[in-house]
């Protein structure tokens, strides 16, 4: 018989595959074919049964065993690799940064249309080797004007709801927002969701932070 894997019939290839003796390239093709070819899968199953028999192992001869496992996993989520999770976490972190920046804009006085447009560099993929994007946000952009009353009628009309009279913004809020504007501008920042301090309202009405929290 020819040594060339490509000239072998699928069944001969399958015999070599279950022994780990097929080439990598042909293995890829055959695995793809296996998933669509019920006859080949039947051979796979029977040949492993023969192996078990020769090795004196308990024989799961009932096709129902594999069928029951398949039924259970059919409704389960696909077990994703860590790489995919990393991308999702990066995207989640970016979404959090965007929402924090948007929330900061909401407490700024004046119509958003009158404010100078904020130029934010577009995010780059996490595996990019490009340079760090420089944020064009200025500190003054994020510093709210604390002079207007937070619960007068005009503010309610503009924002749709009265702001909490107990919400007196603290210089620590500035620090918090600046840290996150810098983090949002850094494209290679790994998920910083765990690094986001949780801002909580303290008993005296001053908003402070309780420390980093891990989602």
């Amino acid at each position: 018989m020819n040594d060339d894997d490509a000239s072998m019939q699928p069944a001969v290839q399958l015999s070599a595959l279950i022994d780990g003796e097929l080439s990598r390239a042909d293995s890829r093709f055959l695995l793809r074919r296996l998933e669509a070819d019920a006859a080949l899968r039947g051979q796979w199953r029977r040949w492993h049964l023969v192996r078990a028999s020769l090795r004196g192992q308990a024989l799961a001869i009932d096709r129902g065993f594999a069928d029951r496992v398949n039924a259970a996993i059919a409704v389960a989520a696909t077990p994703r690799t860590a790489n995919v999770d990393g991308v999702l976490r990066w995207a989640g972190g970016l979404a959090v940064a965007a929402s924090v920046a948007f929330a900061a804009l909401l407490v700024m006085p004046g119509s958003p249309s009158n404010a100078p447009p904020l130029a934010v560099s577009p995010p780059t993929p996490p595996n990019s080797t490009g340079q760090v994007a420089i944020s064009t946000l200025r500190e003054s952009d994020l510093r709210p004007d604390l002079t207007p009353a937070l619960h007068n009628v005009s503010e309610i009309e503009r924002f749709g709801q009265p702001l909490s009279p107990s919400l007196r913004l603290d210089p620590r809020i500035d620090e918090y927002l600046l840290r996150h504007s810098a983090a949002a501008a850094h494209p290679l920042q790994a998920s910083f969701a765990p690094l986001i301090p949780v801002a909580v309202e303290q008993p005296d009405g001053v908003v402070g932070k309780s420390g980093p929290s891990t989602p």
Partner: protein
Amino acid sequence: MNEARIGENALDLALIERVQRGEKRAFDLLVTRYQHRIIAVVSRYVQDWSDAQDIAQDAFIRAYRALANFRGDSQFYTWLYKIAVNTAKNWLVAQGRRPPTDDIDATDAVQYEGGSRLRDTDTPEHELLRQEIERTVSTTVKALPEELRMAFTLREVDGLSYEEISETMSCPIGTVRSRIFRARDAIDQKLRPLLDN
């Protein structure tokens, strides 16, 4: 062309990658590949056939859910073996029974997997079929031509690679591959009617 062979461990990894890409049928291939060994492992903890099957199924389901955490730094079977042992122990604890304290390391498990006899308390028909399968395989192997039988048993019983069999039998690897396939095919011709019925 002597392209590198995939190897059994790399075959498992290739199947796992397909599962992680959403091809659940690839997991079925892993189940049929290891179900017998895992039931044999579980049978060291429980003697009842249907309990052993239930525990083994549970072990595979847990393995599927944990596949995202499998990094390939150990062999897939070793990882699966540990899941099966833990599942069996948890089952015993849930039954109010104490699991055995002497664990057999997964790397030594191969020599202990043979010879386990489960009581088939639910399906005597299955027990009869199992005996018939073993008898058919054994008889067919004994009836094979010498060169086919030798190549096949060196592979399936002794676990030699094709290259090692080639050296042992002083023949090309392609001849080894052909002989092993023909032996499997001959057994399959006898076994298939038994299973189809």
